[in-house]
C-alpha cells in the first residue's frame, strides 16, 4: 500500500477492483465502512461477481475477468475528455510534460515499437525521453531535432556493441503539454481508443453503467477541485493475469492523473493476502530481488563496481527541476547488506564478499521452479508454509513434477496435498509403488506458536508474542532452517565443495546458533554501527556495536551493517519499535505514530510531499499530513515527511523521490516494464474472444507459454465459459479445512454458477457439476446464484463461473468422502505475467457439464 489500512477512513471515494476485501480482509475493511459512515464516502466495486464487498457498495459493475485494463483505460479516457484531472499536480509531480523520443510507437496494432517476433521481446531503446531542455510552445520545430537524438542508440561508430540505453540527464519537456510526443499527448492518443463503446465490447459492462462509474470516480476532481481524495484498492484479482502488473500501472496512472497519490485517503493500495506477505516480499522471498528491493546480481555483474553501476540510477530530469533520486544511495544499502550477510568476511579488498552472492542466470520464479522439476532439472524442494500442489497453477503438473523429484521436505502443521501428492486421486497402488521421491515431513509451528513480526499491507511491522507452547515434536521454522544450515556448513567444512566460502563465511552470530532468537534476527535486520559514527550535520554520535537509528546512517565503507535498509529504524537503541502499542493519534488522521513501525522511517503515507501544492501547502487543510514550514526552513508534519527535509519548494524537487526523474511516471521509460510503457488491453491467454482492439495481436506479445506435454492451453472453440478462482472468508487457503469450526461454516466445495446458465443447462443448486479446462476436470456442487449474470462480450453472449480454491484431497470434508477430491487449481493454466511472474489464476476457459 502507498497508504495504509487505517488511512482508508480518510477517503471520499473508493474504487475496489481486483479484490474482495469484505471477503478476504474483513478486519481491514472496517476502515472502508468507516469512510462511508463518517464521510459519506462512495464505494464503487468492479468484479466478475457480485461479492460480499459489492453488497455494501454504492455502485457495482460486473466485469469480465481479465478485462481490467480496458475498464481503467476507459476511465483514464473519460477523465482526460472531461477535464477531471489535477492539472497542477500533473504538471509538477508527473512526467506528463516530458517529451518522448522520436521513433516511439503506440500499440494501435497491439505492438509497441521495437518488438522482435523471433525472441518475443522488445528492444526498448525508443521507450525513452528525449534529451534537451524547455520545448514549451515549440512543438512545431521539435520534430526534426528529435529524430537525430534517436539515432545514437542504434550502434556506435567504433564497432563495439552499443551501450545499454539510459535515461537522458536533461529531459526535454513542454509545460504547455502541446508537444505531440509529450507524455500527456501520447497518453491521450493511447486511451482515445478506450471509448465507452469499446469498454463495453471488451468488459461486458454496459456503456451507461460504465459511464456512471467513470463519472462517480472522477467526480473528486470535478471543476478542478483538489480537496477530495479517492483511493484505489486491489488484491490478487489484478496481479493474477498475464498482464497483471500493467493493470496496477493503469491504476497508478489514473491516480496520478487525478492527483490522488501521496494523499490521505488516496493512493494505490494493494491488499496482501496473508498476514506477512508484505514482509516476505520486503525480505526478498522472490528470486529477482535482495532484501529491501535491491536488484539481484546477474552473471554480467563481474564485480561489485559493475553491479553497482548497473543497479544505481542516475538522476534524470529537466535541468531546471530538482530530483533527490534516493536510489543513488544504493551502494550504502548494498554494502551494509553484505556486511550483515558475511560480517568480517566482507572487506573492501574482496568487494564486500559480493562474489558470495548467487548470480541469477535465468527465471527462478514459482512456475519455473515447478517446470524445472517437471523437466528433471530441479531434484528436490523445501516446502515450508505453502502447499505447492494446491497453489498450482496446473496442480497436475506439480504432482507430476514431485513424482520426478528425488526428495521433498515439507514443514507444515497438517498433512497436506503436497506432502501426500503420492496419494492424489488417479494414482493407483501400482503407480504409487513406482514413485521414488523421498518425502520428509517436519512438524512446524503454527502462527500462534511463534513470536516475530508480521508486516501487514500497510507496511507496518508488528511484533507478536507466542501465545501457545509448541505441540508435540513441532519446531519453529528458524530452528529447522538453522539446523539444516549448520549441518550443511559442517559438510562443507569436512568435505569441501565447489564453492564453500559463501556457506563457511556466512554470518551466524546468534546466542543459540541452533535456534536463533527472532529478536536477535530483527536486530540484525535493522543493522548496527561497525565503527564509531557521527552525523556531520547534527553531530549526533553512535558507538561501535550500537543499533543504527535509521537508514540515513548507512555507509558504503563497511562501517555499518543492515540486513534490510527499509527496516532500518525498526529496532534501535530505543528497543524493538515493532512491539510498540501506542494508541495516540494527535492528528486524527489514523497515523498512530507510536504503534509498531511503518517502513520506511515510520512513515505511514508514502510520497506525502504530493499532499501539498507546489508551494508546500496541503491541498486540503482538513487533512494536513506534511507541509513546508518557512520559518523553520524545513518540511514538518503529522506524518514523517517523505522528502528531503530542507528542500525548499522553489527548488522544485519532485515528490516521487524513488524515481530518478523525481516525478510520477505516466509513461514508464526503458526496461522497467517488459510489455510496454503504457498499459494496453490484452486478452488472457485463454479468452472467449479475439481482442477487439487488435484481433491479430490478441494476448500479451511478450508472454511465453510453457512447452512440456503437461502445458495445455484451450481455445473458445472447445471451452466457452470464463472461470475465475478465489477464497472465502470462512476459510484460510488449504488450511482451515482441517478445523471443524470453519468446516461447519462452509462444509464443502462448490461452483458459483449464474442462474441464467443453470436454467439453460437445467441445473439446480446442489447438483454436482463437472468443470473441464484444457488441463483437467474439477467436480463440485453447483451454487446457482443471481450474483453472476451473463455478459455480451464483443457481441457474444458469455458466462462466467467462479470456484473457491480451498479444497483438495486432505481435510475433513475430503476424509469424510464429501468431495470429488479435485483441487481447483487442476484447472488453471501455466502462464505468467512477464513482469512479476504471477500465474493467470483469474480468467481462463472451461466448459461446464452435469456430472
Amino acid at each position, binding site marked *: 500500500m502507498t497508504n495504509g489500512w487505517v488511512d482508508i477512513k480518510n477517503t471520499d471515494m473508493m474504487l475496489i477492483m481486483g479484490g474482495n476485501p469484505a471477503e478476504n480482509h474483513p478486519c481491514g475493511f472496517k476502515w472502508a*465502512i*468507516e469512510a462511508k459512515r463518517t464521510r459519506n464516502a462512495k464505494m464503487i466495486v468492479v468484479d466478475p461477481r457480485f461479492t460480499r464487498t459489492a453488497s455494501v457498495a454504492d455502485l457495482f459493475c460486473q466485469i469480465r475477468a481479465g478485462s481490467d485494463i480496458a475498464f481503467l483505460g476507459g476511465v483514464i479516457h473519460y477523465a482526460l475528455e472531461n477535464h477531471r484531472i489535477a492539472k497542477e499536480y500533473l504538471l509538477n509531480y508527473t512526467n506528463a510534460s516530458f517529451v518522448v523520443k522520436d521513433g516511439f510507437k503506440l500499440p494501435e496494432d497491439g505492438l509497441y515499437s521495437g518488438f522482435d517476433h523471433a525472441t518475443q521481446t522488445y528492444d526498448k531503446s525508443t521507450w525513452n525521453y528525449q534529451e534537451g531542455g524547455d520545448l514549451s510552445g515549440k512543438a512545431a520545430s521539435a520534430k526534426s531535432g528529435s529524430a537525430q537524438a534517436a539515432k545514437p542508440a542504434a550502434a556506435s561508430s567504433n564497432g563495439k556493441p552499443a551501450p545499454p540505453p539510459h535515461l537522458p540527464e536533461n529531459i526535454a519537456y513542454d509545460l504547455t503539454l502541446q508537444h505531440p510526443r509529450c507524455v500527456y499527448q501520447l497518453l491521450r492518443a493511447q486511451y482515445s481508443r478506450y471509448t465507452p463503446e469499446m469498454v463495453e465490447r471488451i468488459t461486458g459492462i454496459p456503456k451507461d453503467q460504465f459511464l456512471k462509474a467513470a463519472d462517480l470516480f472522477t467526480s473528486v476532481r470535478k471543476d478542478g477541485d483538489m480537496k477530495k481524495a479517492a483511493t484505489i484498492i486491489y488484491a490478487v484479482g489484478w496481479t493474477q493475469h498475464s498482464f497483471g502488473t500493467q493493470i496496477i500501472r493503469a491504476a497508478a496512472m489514473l491516480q496520478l492523473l487525478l492527483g490522488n497519490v501521496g494523499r490521505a485517503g488516496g493512493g494505490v493500495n494493494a491488499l496482501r493476502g496473508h498476514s506477512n506477505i508484505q514482509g516476505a516480499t520486503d525480505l526478498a522471498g522472490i528470486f529477482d530481488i535482495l532484501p529491501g528491493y535491491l536488484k539481484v546480481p546477474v552473471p554480467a555483474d563481474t564485480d561489485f563496481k559493475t553491479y553497482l553501476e548497473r543497479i544505481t540510477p542516475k538522476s534524470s530530469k529537466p535541468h531546471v527541476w530538482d530530483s533527490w533520486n534516493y536510489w543513488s544511495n544504493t551502494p550504502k544499502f548494498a554494502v551494509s547488506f553484505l556486511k550483515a550477510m558475511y560480517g568480517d568476511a566482507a572487506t573492501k579488498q574482496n568487494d564486500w564478499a559480493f562474489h558470495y552472492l548467487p548470480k541469477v542466470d535465468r527465471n527462478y520464479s514459482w512456475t519455473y521452479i515447478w517446470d524445472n522439476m517437471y523437466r528433471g532439472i530441479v531434484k528436490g524442494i523445501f516446502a515450508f508454509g505453502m502447499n505447492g500442489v494446491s497453489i498450482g497453477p496446473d496442480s497436475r503438473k506439480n504432482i507430476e513434477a514431485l513424482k520426478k523429484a528425488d526428495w521433498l521436505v515439507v514443514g507444515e502443521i497438517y498433512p497436506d496435498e503436497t506432502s501426500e501428492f503420492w496419494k492424489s486421486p488417479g494414482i493407483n497402488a501400482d503407480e504409487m509403488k513406482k514413485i521414488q521421491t523421498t518425502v520428509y515431513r517436519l512438524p512446524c509451528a503454527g502462527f500462534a506458536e511463534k513470536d516475530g513480526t508480521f508486516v501487514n499491507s500497510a507496511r507496518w511491522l508488528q511484533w507478536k508474542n507466542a501465545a501457545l507452547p509448541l505441540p508435540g515434536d513441532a519446531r519453529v521454522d528458524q530452528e529447522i532452517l538453522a539446523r539444516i544450515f549448520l549441518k550443511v556448513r559442517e559438510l562443507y567444512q569436512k568435505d569441501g565443495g565447489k564453492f564453500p566460502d559463501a556457506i563457511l563465511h556466512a554470518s551466524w552470530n546468534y546466542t543459540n546458533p541452533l535456534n536463533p532468537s527472532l529478536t536477535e534476527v530483527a536486530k540484525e535486520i535493522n543493522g548496527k554501527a561497525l565503527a564509531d559514527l557521527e552525523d556531520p550535520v547534527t553531530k549526533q554520535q553512535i558507538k561501535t556495536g550500537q543499533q543504527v537509528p535509521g537508514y540515513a546512517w548507512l555507509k558504503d565503507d563497511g562501517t555499518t551493517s543492515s540486513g534490510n535498509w527499509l527496516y532500518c529504524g525498526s529496532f534501535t537503541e530505543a528497543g524493538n519499535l515493532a512491539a510498540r502499542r501506542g494508541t495516540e493519534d494527535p492528528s486524527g488522521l489514523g497515523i498512530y505514530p507510536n504503534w509498531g513501525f511503518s517502513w520506511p522511517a515510520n512513515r505511514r503515507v508514502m510520497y506525502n510531499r504530493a499532499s501539498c501544492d507546489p508551494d508546500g501547502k496541503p491541498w486540503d487543510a482538513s487533512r494536513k499530513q506534511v507541509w513546508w514550514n518557512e520559518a523553520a526552513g524545513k518540511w514538518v508534519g503529522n506524518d514523517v515527511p517523505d522528502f528531503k527535509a530542507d528542500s525548499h519548494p522553489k527548488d522544485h524537487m519532485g515528490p516521487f523521490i524513488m524515481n530518478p526523474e523525481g516525478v510520477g511516471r505516466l509513461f514508464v521509460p526503458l526496461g522497467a516494464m517488459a510489455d510496454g510503457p503504457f498499459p494496453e488491453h490484452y486478452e488472457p491467454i485463454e479468452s472467449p474472444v479475439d481482442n477487439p482492439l487488435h484481433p491479430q495481436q490478441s494476448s500479451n506479445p511478450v508472454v511465453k507459454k510453457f512447452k512440456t506435454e503437461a502445458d495445455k492451453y484451450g481455445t473458445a472453440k472447445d471451452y466457452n465459459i470464463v472461470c475465475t478462482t478465489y477464497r472465502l472468508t470462512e476459510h484460510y487457503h488449504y488450511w482451515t479445512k482441517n478445523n471443524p469450526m470453519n468446516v461447519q461454516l462452509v*462444509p*464443502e466445495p462448490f461452483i458459483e454458477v449464474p442462474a441464467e446458465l443453470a436454467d439453460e443447462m437445467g441445473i439446480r443448486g446442489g447438483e454436482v457439476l463437472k468443470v473441464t479446462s484444457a488441463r483437467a476436470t474439477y467436480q463440485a456442487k453447483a451454487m446457482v*446464484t*443471481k450474483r453472476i449474470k451473463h455478459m455480451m462480450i464483443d457481441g457474444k453472449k458469455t458466462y462466467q463461473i467462479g470456484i473457491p480454491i480451498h479444497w483438495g484431497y486432505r481435510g475433513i470434508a475430503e476424509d469424510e468422502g464429501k468431495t470429488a477430491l479435485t483441487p481447483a487449481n487442476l484447472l488453471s493454466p501455466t502462464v505468467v505475467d512477464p513482469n512479476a511472474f504471477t500465474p493467470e489464476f483469474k480468467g481462463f476457459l472451461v466448459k461446464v457439464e452435469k456430472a
Partner: protein
Amino acid sequence: MSQATLRIQKISGHAGSVPGEDTQRGLTVCKLIDTTTCIGCKACEVACMEWNDLPFGETVFGNSYQTMPETRWNYWNLILFNEHERDDGTLMWLMRKNQCMHCAEPGCLAACPADGAIVQYTNGIVDFQQANCIGCGYCITGCPFDIPKMNPKNNRVFKCTLCTDRVSEGLEPACIKACPTGCLHFGTKEDMLDLAGKRAKQLRDHSNFPHAGVYDPPGVGGTGVIYVLHDATNPEIYGGLPKDPHIPFMVKLWKGPLKWLGNVAMVGGLIGLFVHYLRYGAKAREDEDINPGGAKS
C-alpha cells in the same frame, strides 16, 4: 450463569408478584444491527459458538453462503443471506444476523407455563432457565421470530442469552465484540435507537435508500435487538423478518381470558401425575450436560 447483578422484571408461569419487582430498575440494553454495513463474515456466529461453548454440528451445502437454514438449539446466531432484485434491476445481497430479538413483550415468556423457565431481566434480556424448562415447546409457538429451538435429546429449549453472563459483568455480548466492521453496536435502548435513527437518515439522505429505517416492532413492545434496514417498509426480504410481529392470538387467549381453564387442567394433570407416580415410580434421570452455556457460569 452469573446473574448476581441482574434483576428479574417478568417471569413465566409464576403466580403472585415478580421477585424483585418494584425495586430499582436498570437501563434497558439493546443490540443494534446495521444490515447496511454487514458483510456476512460470520465472525459473530463463531464468537457465539466459542463464548457459549456450543458444540460443532454437521452442516450441508444448501446452495447459499448461509451456514444452515435456520438457528438450532445449539446455534443461536445465524446470518441469513438473501439475494434480492430491486425495482431498478440492481441486485442486493442482504445479510441479516438473526437471533433472539429480546422482545419487550416476549411471546415465548407469555406462552411458557413453567415457573421460572423464562425470565426477563430489568435490563430487558429475555433468558431461558433450562433447569425450570418442562419441554412443552409452547415458547416455540409463542415466538413470532421462530427463534427458540428444542434439544431433542433432553427436551430443553435454548436460544441466544444476549450473553447475560458477559453483560452482567459490564461486557458487550460476544457477537458485538467480534464484529470487524462495526455493524454491530451495544448499549442502552435509547442510545441505540438514536444511533440507528441517525444512520437510517444518513442512508436516506446520502445513499440510494429512500426507505431506509429502523426495525423496532411495536407489536411486541419493541425489541432488545433492533435493525437498520435499507428498506424498512419491506423487512420480509431480509429472510422473512416479520413486518408486524405479534404474540400469536392463541397464546394471548390462553394466557389471558382462558387462564383459569389452564389452571383447572393443570390441577387435573397434577392429580394424574401423582397417580402415575404411585403406579410406576420415579423416572431415571439421564446424566448429561444439558446446558451448553454452563461451562462459563
